[in-house]
């Protein structure tokens, strides 16, 4: 670059310096923010709400079974081995999207798969399972959604992994995909089994 002649002092110099500082600060801030964004962009589930339950004992429940309403089922009966609990409802369109994925995985019998039917009239839930197939070992029904509050469930689908000691290991909000199963659920499950 050739040596520029010294700029003639314009009456606006002060304003330009001020504007320059503002632009520079804004630009540095933006770059910093985007850098932070890039750094976290490969963290899986970065947009999932963190569940306060992870690492804590799963809240106990005592709910009727969907297929035999007279019989009640307590969480304690599942102790000993890890299990996956999938929250669904016949009213939930996303659940239909994930249903084939879940069914395929449940068929591998890799882990016990419990269904948690949320806020659903019994007939609707049964009809839904008849139509799309029932991959679950058993389905508990929470028609009023009371127990869901203890679990921090605020919609469907959500999926929990609970280990043999009844500790919540992993949670996913939204529809499960093959990729999430392979990259998150199975590793979390293996870890839970290894620590047993």
């Amino acid at each position, binding site marked *: 670059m050739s040596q520029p002649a010294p700029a003639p002092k314009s009456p606006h110099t002060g304003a330009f310096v001020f504007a*320059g500082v503002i632009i520079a600060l804004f*630009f540095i801030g933006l770059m910093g923010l985007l850098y932070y964004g890039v750094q976290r962009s490969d963290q899986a589930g970065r947009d999932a709400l963190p569940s306060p339950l992870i690492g804590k004992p799963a809240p106990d429940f005592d709910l009727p079974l969907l297929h035999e309403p007279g019989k009640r089922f307590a969480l304690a009966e599942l102790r000993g081995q890890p299990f996956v609990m999938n929250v669904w409802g016949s009213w939930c369109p996303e659940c239909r999207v994930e249903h084939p994925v879940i069914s395929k995985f449940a068929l591998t019998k890799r882990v016990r798969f419990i269904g948690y039917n949320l806020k659903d009239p019994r007939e609707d839930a049964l009809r839904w399972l008849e139509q799309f197939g029932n991959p679950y070992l058993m389905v508990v029904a929470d028609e009023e959604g009371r127990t869901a509050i203890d679990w921090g469930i605020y919609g469907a689908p959500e999926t929990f992994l609970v280990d043999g000691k009844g500790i919540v290991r992993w949670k996913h909000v939204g529809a499960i995909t093959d990729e999430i199963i392979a990259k998150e659920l199975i590793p979390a499950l293996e870890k839970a089994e290894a620590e047993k």
Partner: protein
Amino acid sequence: MLPELGQVALILALLIAGLQAVLPLAGAQRGKAGWMAVARPAAYAQLFLLLGAFVVLTVAFVTQDFSVKYVADNSNSLLPMVYRYTAVWGAHEGSLLLWTLVLAVWNAAVAEFSRGLPERVIARVLGVIGLISLGFLAFLIFTSNPFVRLLPAPLEGRDLNPLLQDVGMIIHPPMLYIGYVGFVVPFAFSIAALIDGSVDARWLRWTRPWTNIAWGFLTIGIALGSWWAYYELGWGGWWFWDPVENASFMPWLVGAALLHSQAVTEKRGSFRGWTLLLAIAAFSLSLLGAFLVRSGVLTSVHSFAADPSRGLFVLIFLGVVIGGSLVLYVLRVPRLEQGAPFTATSRETLLLANNVLLTCACAMVLLGTLYPLLADALGLGKISVGPPYFGLLFLLLMTPLVLLLPFGPLTRWQREEMSRPLRMLAPWAVLALVLGAIAYFTAPQGKWKTAAGVATSAWVALGTLRFLWSRFQSKGNRFTAEMLGMTLAHGGIAVFLIGALLVEGLNVQRELAMTPGQTLEIGRYAFRYESVDELRGPNYLATRGHVQVMRDDKPLAMLNPEKRAYASGGQVMSEVGIYPGVFGDVYVALGESLGGQARAIRIHIKPFVRWIWLGAGLMALGGFVTATDRRFRKAEDKR
């Protein structure tokens, strides 16, 4: 063998871009004509090489060469022929190749149509474009190479994202990219002017058509994206404030501000520094858009797969380009001369208001887009701002813009008695209000939105017609292509306002379970759900519904909405059935089976929805027509 040729072409293009970036800039600085003369041939050579690479990738798709990883990832043998062409830009690598190709086209066009400019200026302009091209080619080759082989070659590929298997997708990305990338021309011009330390009105006149054309293409690209979302996503909406939509909308807003500011600078010499800054901002926002889409920083329906190394590369590139431009700007802009003075009531002031409002709107879209990231970085929790935020702020900023719009063309430069344009427009303002009032009392629902739509649209349309009238009234006034372009674009805004506000106000939406034979009546329309059947497409299985639509008891159309399950990924896509009309669409989407014969059916009646895209089309046409103005060409003839 061919993919390797494509590879070589890319590497050669990278080297040539390096030459184009260094030699002309250095030559212009040192006054070496030989170095500056490298620019043009380098631009043509890049176009030739990148066109070659693009053709090679297309051939790989058409002949289904699954040994190329990108082809195997994004197509399979069931994919229909037309989508094999569009699959070329269906994912990250190929779309980036398209991006660099489009950049090369602009680059060569600048080289070709810049004979009227001083050699030093064009050497700098092409040098800056060479730098940008270098950056993108390096990004393409080092992080996203589309020609990587997959050996041994798989027998079958995966599939193109089913969302993208659609006609709209064939033209949407190229249009968008032509617009995005086109802002490189005013940007390069700005940098050249800053290096030179002066803004010649003649050079500025030369950049105006480029900005107009780029902006026109961007308008078409955004409109196509919106139209595609309308019929392909099956949600019935046309704009979602999705991060990727915002990414294309931000340069559009700043580009619109730039068009107006360039006109002021060219004609009056005012706003020089501001015009340069806007040109830098428009292209910077295009780059930011590319970054947001490709880095996976934000989650969106459109974004490509996340890869931090790619994100980091674009971020560094972004930092260098924007940071460098701003440093240059701050160092050089105080030396620019001032333009002709103007008073508070003048066309300059109105255009300044236009610029301030458009830039604020852009800043607010930027804030809303990045806010979830900001909140997360500051530990405020996971928040996302949605349509309520954008809708409200947009209303606040666009209302004054629309209200002031008709004054602009009718107000004189430099100084004006405000009573003159006020007198000219007053009767039309009254008429617009009356029309709005009529709309208020006749609308069956959404009265305020309908009235606002009719009144504002009538105001803009009548004000624009008033301008036409005053041009034809006074003798000796020429009517230039630039004025025609402005009239078309402003008319486009009037048409858009009708579409956007009336569909908001008058949209009817029903979602219900229907059994075959059941009829639903909505106003003048009746919908009879006849049946569903199964349909086998080339690479999907579809459930197709038959819904008979009747208006005033006469059969209107048989709509066949589908739910398609694609063979490869198991994804289910909906294809909506639309009966289009100038005054409204009938839109039927097929839902899930609800057991037995019942099925969820979603029906929308969307009055005037087409006017949204028609308006956008008129705006784009306005940009193109303006670019043909004789004055711009004359500037070139003067050597």
